[in-house]
């Protein structure tokens, strides 16, 4: 997509939303498609309900840095409104945005110290008019399991990338426990249908 045929995807949200699994699957999908891949995320303290970001970079040529340069992300996939803004500067001028229409209140907000910014989606759309806003929780509830949110968004994301859906299916089948495969495949296709 961008320079040097590298595709840069940054996936962001809040600890516990399944971001690491989503980026793991994306990394494996890209490798299965014959690309070189590098992926990075921060574990540790960030897992305790903190802000989480995962970088996935892939393409036909060898990838150097595991981290996306500021201003070079082709896709910003965000599982939470506020976190979209926190990582906004990673997005390139021609980048795509996928946002979960969902708010998870940070401590300063749920303790009444600070307001949750009101107009995030408007601000995003002003700058990237074709931003995709998805009510992921509603879609996940429809499938009867809020935990498949991450795979729904993987489905949405897949429509922006040039890798066949079958490869995602194969990797999902291999990376999940057998009893979770069916619902996640449904979630993946639900996500693809949302765009």
């Amino acid at each position: 997509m961008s320079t040097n045929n590298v595709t840069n995807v940054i996936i962001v949200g809040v600890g516990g939303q399944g971001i690491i699994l989503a980026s793991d699957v994306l990394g494996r999908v890209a490798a299965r498609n014959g690309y070189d891949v590098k992926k990075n995320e921060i574990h540790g303290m960030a897992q305790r309900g903190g802000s989480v970001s995962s970088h996935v970079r892939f393409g036909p040529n060898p990838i150097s840095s595991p981290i996306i340069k500021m201003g070079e992300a082709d896709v910003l996939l965000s599982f939470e409104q506020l976190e979209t803004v926190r990582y906004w500067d990673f997005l390139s001028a021609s980048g795509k945005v996928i946002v979960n229409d969902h708010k998870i209140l940070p401590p300063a907000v749920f303790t009444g110290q600070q307001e949750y910014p009101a107009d995030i989606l408007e601000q995003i759309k002003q700058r990237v008019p074709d931003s995709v806003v998805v009510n992921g929780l509603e879609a996940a509830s429809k499938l009867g399991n809020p935990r498949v949110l991450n795979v729904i968004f993987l489905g949405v994301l897949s429509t922006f990338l040039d890798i066949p859906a079958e490869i995602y299916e194969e990797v999902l089948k291999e990376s999940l426990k057998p009893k979770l495969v069916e619902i996640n495949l449904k979630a993946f296709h639900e996500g693809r249908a949302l765009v």
Partner: protein
Amino acid sequence: MSGNEAIARGAYEYGVGLASAYPGTPSTEILENIGKKYPEIRAGWAPNEKVALEVAAGAAYGGVRSLALMKHVGLNVAADPFMTLSYTGINGGLVVVVCDDPEMHSSQNEQDTRNYAKFGKVPCLEPSDSQEAKDMLGEAFKISEEFDTPVILRGSTRISHSMSLVETKERVLGPVEPGLRKEPPKFVMLPGFARRRHPLVEERLKKLAEFAETFPFNQIIMGDDSLGIISAGVAFQYAREAFPNASFLKLGMVWPLPPRMIQEFASKVKRLIVIEDLDPFIEEGVRLMGIQVQGKELTGLCGELSAEKLEKAVLGSSSAKGVAPIEMDLPMRPPNMCPGCPHRATFSALKKNKVYVAGDIGCYTLGALPPMGMLDNCLCMGAGIGIASGLGRSLGDLAKGKAVAVIGDSTFFHSGMTPLLELAYNGGSTTVVLMDNRTTAMTGAQHHPGTGFTLRQDPTITADIEKLADAFGFKRVTVVNPYEVQKLQSVIKEELEADEPSLIISRAPCALLKTGRILPDKPLRIDADACKGCKSCINTGCPALEFVKFKEKPEGEKRQGYSTINEALCVGCRTCYELCKFDAIKEVS
């Protein structure tokens, strides 16, 4: 594979017989992966890094290839055996994997492990991706055995937790025949023997520098000769990203340095820059060779590097064309104790007693953050008890009844036992609150000597903290369920008033643990009319609670708003229930 998975795989392929570690981000998953995937390797958690290295040294003395794994600050704990292991050398290969944390994503400092390599006169290899992490582990074992030395493999957060493609191979055992090797002049570091070993260490370092000249992972990659970059590790990847056309000297061995190779590279390029995370380690080495070079004056000493930082530092601006920025006052989202966390309950009881808290390292360090704000210092693993003891005895009445130490169970076994002994031995009236959540929670719930299970989930002994305190001479030991906040509060008050050291064990399993669970997993609910809006519950910082502010205050309303509970998050720990003075919090029927 992640760098950590690749190192675990390398342990398998290069015939490691024993691996020992204490959990520490970013290194934790190396031993976890060895535990899960490679039963051929004897592996277990050690109580701390010093013991881990000593266990590995034992295996190496016995001719078995061995690994000690730790984060950067872990090597401080293991520094004592490390420094003298350099003198004894090994028998079977010994590699110490040390993962640095530039930017302090999950650490208390950003010390640079390469200084230990120089300090201990031990070679240090530094991979730049997962494939190299695995391959270099093999090289490290060869070097260890050929030069009779422990070897450091220096990783970093971005190596440990970045994934890239790795080719795998079959397992091959090391060349040394295992067995007990008696050779006191080599292994017994009496002064007389050590004096004979030291010159060998200096000689070894010279031979290693010679070896570094032809070490295949030290590599000159010529590009445009207007810019020459000497780099290593993940910093090399950032530099390649920022300056794809530059010439590179990529060092796989960062200590000792290869002088002739560096001279040769310097002579081929017009501008020479060293790009390295943290200290000017390579840069100073290059300067000592009398070569003009730039480095930290451009890239800085603090935090981790990135491609755009390097572009700005070297070229003055970044080439990336970013989207138009969004200006917004963003609330921070720091990590927080989970809903139902027993530490929140313990801190709430401490807060009621308005104490000064000498802290320690674990999830409970998060108690320092607002709105809890209940940690007054945190230095290093195991430091809290000693600090509280020092405060208590030096300040006398100024601290009496006001200062406590808190420490977690895993941290207690790591390095809290000796300060507890000091406290019993030297007396005073310090109160220690041991926040026992039955796991090593912060790094992802690893077992420790108090949990009853090993790395591979096999049943084992359960170290008994009460008996230990008794054996140390503690007369005042109380075990309390932290969720009974009011009771805990009065126990703390009582112990603070006592004239001798006391230990309160505040014991309840981590809210994320599925075994031994005492949480009811039934949410509570707040009666919005009964709530007086006092925020006692809110000020615990529980993510399941939310304060709803009135947009327009109804007539006659005194409150600013009221509290609510997010039933999807609440696990019914009852900490807020215990704190509510107005009976506004109820169980959901």
